[in-house]
């Protein structure tokens, strides 16, 4: 009908190598690119954590070749205290931004959201391509800080001012390192904004005939809700990063108070507020936590339902719970600041919604457990990792109740208790979600099955290993072990060193087990058994198209949706499950509207 449009979705099958694999407009290729980026990032982040763990367990242990990374940071292959902090900062930043945000949200969301809503592609393929490449540039900028000046910043992934804002006087990496860090995150924000625009418009405007919002699978809902959070959270982080850069390069002092003395120098800054950075950062930072975990909730629900062969107790309540998580995530950010010298009234005002936000999380978990009870769960690697996700989410979530209360948090703040809490509930849980999604969707993404035996070995090693690493963190925290120390020399900390050694060994072994996964991933990609179109007998739209999906997702005929997403074990149906695209009439369909 119309000859031209700036953002017409319809783009032909690409022919050149560059359009096909590099600057691809196809959401499926972009999804895989995001996945590859996350995979590289997670390996970098994991190796950094190994170096840190070895240093914590055996303070003078020389790690062969470490001086190649930084001759000043690791003279004689042993970390200096500053370089320990620099590696820790990079571990946190890489993991939070380039793994936990990109893999469950941008990677799987890009690949499967358009397919699950029944669209040919996202509405703005060029934005989508830019979104990935901008994120890629952000990653390069961040990693480049290893190799310039005196290395990356040491301020922690939260970059608390004034440490982050005063410049090189505060230590190695606090000059150029912080500028690169803030630039990288600022660039990252632009990429995520473009991604979020695409995700939301895909969900709202690109659904196929018959696909009402309530007929969307829970994974699609999770990506939609996540993108709504991402849209505004990153929009606040970006100006915060720009102000931080201005403090470095333009001589402003937004985040530095007057008369600050560092290393016997009075700084020329005046008038700013250190708390302001925390307010701006955590206004982004708390939604970010849910940006990392909500896609996991969706993926795990999707995987569990398919393997339980029956819908969850309630489809809508899960959606409403994820929605309330999104809304509440903007109201709780101050619980990161209970001991920052924040107004005590604010602590009260933040504590209440923080306890309230546990309610939707608990509801989701209870619906999962209630639905699992008595179901004949098909055990495979995907469903095992989904169960593992629930386990991590509960174990990590329970400690959240303690931390939500200012009076208890004053003691536990900045100890290993907090480290254990957020690693379990947000980091490892989200990564288990990624694993679950990978084992579940790999056949659709590549056309080949992953090796099930290796998958189960990977699961059990990861599951046991993760608990061995992070459960002792809680005990360490209660014993008063402060985080971000590079050595434990105080009297009360020395008896805890054996626990650290245990954790280090567990971390090394668990990390090694991940190479089973990477081997499985690469080997199966080329040598795995060919996958059928619907290996798990799922009902949603991704299973009604070819494996792997053709360029425009559904071939010549766009799908028409007749049913709610999860029609399993329906009475009177000819099979155990009824596809969303099946025109079969159902008499007693649960949830059918």
């Amino acid at each position: 009908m119309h000859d031209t449009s700036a953002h017409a979705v319809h783009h032909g099958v690409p022919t050149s190598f560059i359009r096909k694999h590099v600057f691809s407009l196809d959401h499926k290729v972009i999804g895989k690119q995001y996945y590859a980026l996350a995979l590289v990032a997670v390996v970098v982040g994991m190796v950094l954590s190994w170096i840190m763990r070895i240093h914590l367990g055996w303070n003078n242990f020389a790690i062969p070749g470490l001086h190649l990374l930084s001759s000043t940071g690791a003279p004689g292959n042993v970390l200096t205290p500053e370089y320990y902090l620099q590696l820790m900062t990079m571990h946190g930043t890489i993991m939070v931004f380039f793994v936990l945000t990109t893999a469950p949200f941008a990677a799987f969301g890009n690949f499967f959201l358009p397919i699950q809503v029944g669209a040919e592609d996202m509405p703005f393929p060029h934005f989508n391509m830019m979104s990935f490449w901008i994120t890629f540039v952000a990653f390069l900028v961040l990693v480049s800080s290893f190799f310039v000046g005196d290395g990356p910043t040491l301020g922690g992934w939260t970059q608390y001012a004034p440490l982050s804002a005063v410049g090189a006087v505060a230590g190695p990496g606090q000059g150029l390192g912080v500028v690169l860090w803030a630039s990288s995150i600022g660039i990252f924000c632009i990429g995520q904004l473009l991604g979020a625009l695409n995700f939301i418009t895909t969900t709202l405007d690109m659904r196929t005939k018959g696909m009402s919002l309530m007929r969307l699978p829970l994974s699609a809902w999770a990506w939609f809700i996540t993108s709504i959070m991402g849209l505004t959270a990153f929009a606040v982080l970006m100006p915060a990063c720009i102000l931080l850069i201005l403090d470095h390069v333009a001589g402003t002092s937004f985040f530095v108070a007057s008369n600050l003395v560092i290393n016997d120098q009075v700084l020329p800054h005046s008038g700013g507020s250190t708390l302001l950075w925390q307010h701006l950062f955590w206004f982004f930072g708390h939604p970010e936590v849910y940006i990392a975990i909500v896609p996991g909730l969706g993926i795990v629900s999707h995987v569990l339902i398919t393997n339980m062969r029956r819908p969850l107790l309630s489809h809508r309540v899960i959606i409403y719970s994820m929605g309330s998580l999104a809304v509440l995530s903007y109201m709780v950010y101050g619980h990161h600041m209970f001991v920052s010298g924040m107004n005590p009234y604010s602590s009260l005002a933040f504590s209440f919604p923080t306890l309230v936000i546990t309610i939707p999380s608990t509801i989701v978990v209870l619906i999962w457990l209630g639905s699992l009870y008595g179901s004949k769960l098909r055990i495979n690697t995907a469903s095992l990792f989904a169960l593992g996700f629930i386990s991590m989410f509960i174990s990590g979530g329970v400690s959240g109740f303690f931390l939500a209360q200012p009076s208890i948090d004053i003691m536990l703040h900045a100890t290993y208790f907090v480290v254990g809490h957020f690693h379990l509930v947000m980091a490892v849980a989200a990564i288990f979600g990624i694993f679950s999604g990978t084992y579940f969707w790999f056949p659709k993404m590549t056309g080949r099955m992953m090796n099930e035996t290796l998958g189960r070995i990977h699961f059990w090693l990861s599951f046991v290993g993760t608990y061995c690493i992070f459960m002792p963190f809680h005990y360490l925290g209660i014993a008063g072990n402060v985080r971000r120390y590079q050595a434990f020399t105080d009297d009360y900390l020395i008896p805890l060193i054996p626990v650290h050694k245990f954790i280090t060994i567990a971390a090394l072994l668990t990390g090694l087990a991940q190479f089973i996964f990477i081997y499985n991933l690469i080997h199966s990609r080329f040598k795995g058994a060919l996958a059928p179109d619907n290996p798990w007998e799922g009902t949603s739209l991704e299973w009604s198209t070819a494996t792997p999906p053709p360029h425009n997702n559904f071939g010549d005929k766009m799908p028409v949706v007749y049913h709610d997403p999860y029609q399993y074990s329906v009475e009177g149906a000819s099979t155990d499950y009824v596809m969303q695209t099946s025109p079969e009439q159902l008499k007693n369909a649960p949830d059918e509207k």
Partner: protein
Amino acid sequence: MTTAMTTDEAHKNTGMGKDLVVYLCMLALAAIQFVIAYQDISASQMFGRMLSVAVVEAGLALLFFMHLSENRGLMWFVLIFTVSVVLGMQYGWTDSFRILGGVPWAK
């Protein structure tokens, strides 16, 4: 240009007079802001009054210049989304007062 812009454009063509009225209202509100600036009141009072006027102005612009009044669903989506995010940012104020006054609330 084929059938593209036809469907629901017809009823919009009536509104030019309304645009002018809204424009004049916004000019008047902007003028009120300038008048408030010359009142002899404290900064916080001035802030409150000016912000209220600005919110009314923004509402007029959203509803009529940006045509939100013609699409209730979109209006609620945009308003609830934006207002909850902007309100979420307001937690920090008590800290800024406390830095100045040394007490939880402004003296």
